[in-house]
């Protein structure tokens, strides 16, 4: 998937595309809960898989000991995974395209 395609998919309104705009808010929220959880975890898995074993341990220690230290994480990721933003966007776009596959 190229960058334009990724941006296009990110810009799509999921519920509108699926014709689910008028479903109950709590169901809508439940779908987002799931999608958010899956996507974030997917990004983490991709990021971790891209790191060396030593760096994986370093990152996991940060996560375990100081999970709210956003600055430390940001610095680590910027340094070790320079393409993290592309990686994250691609993961969301891939997943969204999977959910949108049912639309013809």
């Amino acid at each position, binding site marked *: 998937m190229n960058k334009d395609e990724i941006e296009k998919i990110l810009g799509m309104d999921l519920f509108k595309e699926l*014709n689910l705009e008028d479903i109950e808010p*709590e169901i809508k929220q439940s779908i987002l*809960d*799931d999608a958010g959880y899956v996507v974030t975890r997917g990004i983490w898995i991709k990021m971790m898989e891209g790191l060396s074993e030593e760096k994986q341990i370093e990152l996991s220690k940060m996560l375990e000991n100081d*999970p709210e230290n956003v600055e430390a994480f940001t610095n680590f990721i910027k340094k070790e995974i320079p393409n993290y933003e592309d990686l994250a966007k691609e993961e969301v776009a891939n997943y969204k395209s999977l959910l949108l596959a049912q639309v013809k």
Partner: protein
Amino acid sequence: MEKPKEIEIISSHTDVKESDKKEGIDMYGKKPLGEEEGGYVPRKTAEEIRQEISELKKSLKSTNYVGDKESIEKEIIRLESELKNSPNTKLKTASELAMEGKIAWDKGNKTEKKETKESTEAEINKIKDEIEKRNKRLAELDEEDEKLKKELEKGGYDKDQIENIKNLLAKRKNETEPTTPIEQNIAGKNENKEGKEKYSREELLNAAEIFCKFNRAGYYKNPEGAKVAEEEALKKLKAEHSEREIEAAVKVSGKRNQLSNLKDELKRIEKEHKTAENDPYADSSIVSAKYKQQIQDIKDKILLIDNDYNPLLKELGVSNIDNQLKNLEKYENDADYNKKVQNARLFNLSILQTEKLRYQDAQVATNSAINPKAWDKIKNFFKRGVESKAFQGYAKMGRFTRTALNAAIVGGGTAILWPSAIAAGLGVTSFLAYKTVKGLVGGTFGFGLSKKIFQPMVRGSYGHDEKLTTQDQQGEAVKSAEMSNLEQLAKDKENSEKRAETLEKIFEENIKLCDKYKDRIDKNKKLFKRNNFIIGTLIPGVLGGMGASVLTDWVAGPQVLGILPHHGGGAIKETIPDNHPKGNVTPGESPDLKGEHVLPEVIVTPKTGGSMFDEETLKMATVGKRGIEGVVRDQLEAHPAKFGFNGDINDKLAIHKWSGTKADLIAIDNNYKGGGTETWVKDMGEPGLKGNPAYPIDIDANGKITIHEYFDGKPSGTGGLNSPYEYEHASPTSQRYISALDNTPDMSENTLSLAQENMNQSLHGLVHENLTELSGNIPDYATVLGTTTDKVHSALLDLENTKDIVGNISKLNPEQINLLSKILELQPKLTPDTQAFKNALDTITNSQN
């Protein structure tokens, strides 16, 4: 056949007779294995070769003769080469295999291991040949049968001769029946035009699980119960899903399982590596290189599986929606057609999200086997529970961060804070928090927790009045100053900071309460789920008719970004179906019935008969202030020893704790709970024996606690869900969208650590030994434990069938705990693993007593 190079090398320096060479016999008098297939397996083990090298190296140091040195060095090189080429030591990368043509690469970078495919095909062909032979034999026998039948028709045989011929015919019929499951499947494939039988039972069950027809992690009372659920699932799968869907689901689950199985391969590699590392004769550089190679191969395999998985999942989604929409075509003109289509789409989203979650669990588990130090922490971070680190960090987050990812998924065009949101895993934290907040208002933990959390809050707000019904109390709560403030806060767009602050205070309070009730929640999570009715009853009352989702939106904040439509102050969504009568008496702590309505449409036609319970018991068992489970609990507490309480009879708190769990289990056992539903009783008017159902309990001949049904003080003659005063309650939200987070067990349950698996293995070993040993002595064991033989037997069987005993320690019933304790106690010596487990069991037993 041209000999492989390795054989030539060996032959060149050994004394092998010419005649033996012709026969292919080596200097050790052995014929090389596998030569006839063109392969070559070294006649020495890698271990032996290493030992030889080590000895040669020693002699190299001690010899002073140059000639000897040279020949020893040559021999070492030769042996090292042999070791390198040994199938036990040399492993090839996926790309090397591809070069050799063992893996096929196609345009989409999809691969298939030819070796596996070929061996599978060979196996299938072998079976097909066998079936063909059988069919041929069948034809021959048919011919002979015809002859025999004609002989019979001719007559002239006595009774015994006729009987013999008939027996012969029957025997021949049996001879031609396919015997193995694979043969039966393949035979079935020949007969079944739909071709659904081409998959094994296991594959079909995997497919059924994907379509929410079957839950492997579900609670089944016994193996028979699980079997019934499996049969039902397979039936539904074939009836409701197309062949294309089933094929897609089988492929998706197959690919996922392929990934999961790498975990086992990794364990084997790890074990091998440790053995090699401890081998004093092993060359550490070779050991290390081999290990690295193997790990790299696993990583290659992960990539290849990953590459294949997404297109397969997409095909699953497309095939499913196609079939659903096709099935809906006949309703095109119906008024609720659009709603049906929506439901189809929601179901589609649900199965895709749930399946992806399962796949990720497999990804994390496999990576965790490669690098446990790092991935075990990740695993814990993503644990789907209130105790996770991610969850605990929630309250300290900014709203914008929490919602950034949501915005990206929905496509609201909001700027994405990738670095910070992803860096700290905050995105997931917000979703966990969302989930939990939803749980607090009835989504996940349901009735019990909501009551425990929200009722004190409500009471704290305005003071509890015993004379009022819960409904009235809620009404009072809505009018209270605190709630008005909350409502104002919610509506106050300008003061969003203060609103967030207030809600976070509530949220923090709820976390504390969650912690307090965590054990209970963990123990009865499944049962709480079944009680999920609180949305639309308690919470709308508390929040003055704004609906449960308002609270979740406020806390996590998408409303602030305008992702979801505003619905604050809207109408209450009544979740109890319209066709159910109002004024329900719920299980557990039900509201006082004073002032509730008597329903004219309730027609009670109980059967009557003589009573076997005294009036006092029946009064206690009558539904009124309490629901079915509540009255069962009252009876348990009145006679704890009679119904199996083993602790201190004077410890009321312990008895109360015990009765809660016990009553749940009794309700399930007697079909008043289960499968996502629960039996509720309609409001029958004035409390008391007259005009109300009663549910007295007693112990039957097999030691099982049975719930009886009475009405008007007499046996009603009904049971289960069919009484006119009962109805089946189900959570309506589950009918439209089943959340992936609710639909899958926490990953900690299916990604066990090595230590946990070892511990489970030890325990299973002990259980299995005892099951075998005790098969003839169960009565004695029951006497020792002070229970019935049935309970001992079923406890042992259940334990044997519980994959993760360690992880399910809190779910073990008293018989299982006693049994395990006894088994461990009887062991002459415990391993550290089993000792640790015993300590945990002792803690549970002490807390129960």
